[in-house]
């Protein structure tokens, strides 16, 4: 009898595939890949069978066909004779327009509310809390429908402006009617090019002044005033050019104020029309998202420990400078990533404009085009790709930013 035990043999048994962690990793991955491939294959196979049964093929050439429908709001020339591709482009531009407008307004309101929610004024802080909670806890779609109903349904007809039952607001420059909101439109006059050039140059000069002031401060420690000289640089040259042209040839930049037509069908002439659908979607998106942004801003400021403020005060910085030089740069690191996700949400949520008839990409390519051509599969694919590409680009940019501002620890 031998007392020695057999040394474990390195032989491979099938059960090792499950029991041995080294092989199991491979088993799991192969299995996962196989299952995914099988599911995808199954879906693709079903799709080809279904398409064949319907006598269809996957074919994207429909986007070069005549669209044949009108779009109420077009940023580029478009008629019913344009192609579906152009209709889609109009939709893309409308999506981007309302998203950009909403991003600006939501950021302004959000930052404002977020900071005021931390105010030491009891009443103001409470009011902002009410705003945030009300808008955060009620679906966006309800806000869109409600504001749409107010703007489109409840505003007076143009007729009411003629017979005097309704009147224009803001010094008779803006008309709120159920045909949309009419605002003054800028009109370019003689010398507008010069004016634009001067404005650009004065912005550059103001920035240069700020840079110089900062350099003097850092090299010699002497404080150079920034605000008033920069403001003067910004405003005075432009004002001078505007006044010069106005006296000599006529206003370089005037405003065409809308007015109700004196005769014929009551309608507004002149000015710029903001459609009710755009307005409803814009306001609803902004107010709703602002409540989320406000929470991000508040969280970001609260995340900076009190010691930072106290340390800045101990260094002799005043409150404003403490905020500007110590708190904000740190808080931004916390605020910006969720802020960008909110921007992304705005872009994606703009597809809800469908509820008020806003003609974004979802309504042109993903709506009317699909209904007219019966190309659901291709249309939805293009639609999905558009949103996917936008969101991947923005998340990519956000990752770059995150790496840029990351705390560099030793």
């Amino acid at each position, binding site marked *: 009898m031998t007392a020695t035990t057999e040394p474990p043999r390195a032989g491979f048994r099938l059960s090792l595939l499950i*029991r041995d962690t080294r092989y199991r990793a491979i088993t*799991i*991955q192969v299995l*996962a890949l196989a299952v*995914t491939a099988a599911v995808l294959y199954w879906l693709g196979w079903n799709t080809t069978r279904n398409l064949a049964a319907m006598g269809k093929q996957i074919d994207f050439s429909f986007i070069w066909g005549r669209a044949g429908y009108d779009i109420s709001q077009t940023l580029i020339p478009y008629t019913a004779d344009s192609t579906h591709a152009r209709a889609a482009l109009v939709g893309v531009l409308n999506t981007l327009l309302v998203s950009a407008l909403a991003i600006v307004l939501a950021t302004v309101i959000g930052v404002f509310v977020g900071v005021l929610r931390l105010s030491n*004024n009891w009443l103001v802080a409470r009011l902002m809390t009410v705003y945030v909670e009300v808008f955060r806890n009620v679906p966006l779609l309800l806000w869109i429908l409600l504001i749409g109903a107010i703007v489109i349904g409840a505003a007076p007809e143009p007729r009411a402006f003629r017979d005097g039952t309704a009147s224009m607001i803001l010094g008779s420059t803006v008309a709120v009617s159920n045909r949309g909101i009419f605002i003054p439109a800028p009109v370019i006059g003689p010398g507008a090019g010069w004016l634009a050039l001067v404005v650009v140059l004065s912005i550059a000069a103001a920035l240069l002044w700020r840079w110089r002031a900062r350099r003097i401060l850092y090299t010699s420690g002497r404080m150079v005033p920034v605000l008033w000289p920069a403001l003067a640089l910004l405003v005075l040259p432009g004002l001078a050019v505007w006044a010069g042209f106005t006296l000599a040839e006529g206003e370089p930049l005037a405003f065409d104020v809308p007015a109700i037509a004196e005769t014929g069908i009551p309608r507004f002439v002149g000015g710029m029309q903001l459609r009710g659908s755009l307005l409803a979607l814009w306001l609803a998106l902004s107010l709703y998202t602002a409540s989320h942004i406000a929470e991000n801003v508040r969280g970001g400021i609260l995340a900076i420990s009190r010691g930072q403020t106290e340390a800045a005060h101990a260094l002799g910085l005043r409150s404003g400078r403490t905020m500007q030089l110590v708190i904000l740069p740190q808080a931004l690191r916390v605020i910006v990533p969720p802020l960008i996700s909110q921007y992304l949400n705005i872009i994606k949520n703009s597809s809800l404009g469908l509820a008020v008839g806003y003609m974004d990409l979802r309504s042109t390519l993903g709506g009317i085009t699909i209904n007219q051509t019966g190309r659901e599969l291709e249309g939805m694919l293009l639609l999905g790709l558009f949103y996917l590409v936008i969101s991947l680009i923005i998340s990519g940019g956000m990752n770059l930013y995150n790496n840029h501002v990351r705390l560099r620890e030793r």
Partner: protein
Amino acid sequence: MTEPATGFVRTEMLDPLAPPERAGGPLVWLRANLFSSWLNAILTVISLYVVWRVLATVVPWAANGIWDATSLSNCREIRDELYGPGVPGACWAVIHDRWRQLLFGFYPKALYWRPILALAIFVVTVLPFLVPALPRRLMWMAPVAPFAIFWLLWGGSVWTPVLAMAGLAVIWGVWSSVGDRHGAFAGWVAGIVALVVIFLPVGRAFDAVLGTGETWLDALFPLAGNIGALLERALPASIQSVITREFGGFELSFIIGVAGIILSLPLGILLALGRQSHLLVVRVLSVSFIEIIRGVPLIVWLFTASLLLNYFLPPGTNFDLMLRVIIMVTIFAGAYLAEVIRGGLAALPKGQYEAADALGLDYWKSMRLIILPQALKISIPGIVNTFIAMFKDTTLVMFVGLLDPLGLSNSIRADQSWNGIYWELFLFIGALFFVVCFGMSRYSMYLEHRLARDRR
């Protein structure tokens, strides 16, 4: 030595002095909180003006409300008669007239007790999970409740849910017995194999023989569905069935929302674990799934579910729109949850992972016992925010033709008698959503506070 004579010792206590006038009282509070500086004083005055304006508009409007009228114009006539022309007054009659629809959709009136009872069962089932003071024993309802609730809501034969439950019990039995003996991974494989092998072919065979009707439950669990059909013939026990088209109103939102919440959490956890996995293939698959789902708006996914699903499934498959929506919402919320939970997983110190390995726990045990309890605790605010967002997003189902409260509000406003009404309707619907969402967010704050044991 004699003690030095003590000059003065007080023998009785003096009454405490009143605090200085500037240290307390309402005036000081006002000064500190409302008028601490010029800017604050101005802000306070503006705020007071805003509050006054809002209240002065809303309170008389709401108080003058008419509760009993047949149409909006009728409402206005009554109002003019009561308060004189032009006085603002709400027309709550629309709520009085349509509240049943807004809450229950077109669910048969005689059967309202069923969703209400289902809601009661739901509340009793989840309460022990939410309130730690309640006895743990109450949790036994959890495995049974979903089936009972399903049966109450949709009706039909009692055998369908009973057998579906039995089927799941078999899978669970296979999973746990194989898992105990051969490791968790083998358990998963065996469970899935049991699901596929036992249920699909046998169920399909039954389908062919019996020619029984395809409800969506049959499609998922054909065997249970078919034995159920046999049992139903032998031993009928069914209640009136309600089809999906009759569901609507807040009931519909609540069902989709709750189902999505309960189903998306496990999906989100699995996706998050997949994204953190050391296995390249698993990681890549999880990341692409999450990014694709998150990159496209929910409304596009819902349209995909309603328009395109027929392309991707075998010809002739036709399953319930509501189930499709629930699946889509679940997947969507799952992808968002995965990102939230990933944050929690990443925030755990590496030592926790290493300690779990050092204890000799396998992957699933270390996740279940060490990692996830801590990671989920960190992610609670994000998880609840995702739930709230998903609950609000259930309103998007109106675009695919399900009648949620907002979809119904559109049809009510299109109705001749209520054309032109909006504040009253939207206030009512908004209040319904607000109560649920606000409740969830407050509960998450309470939970966060209760679980913060390390920071007490």
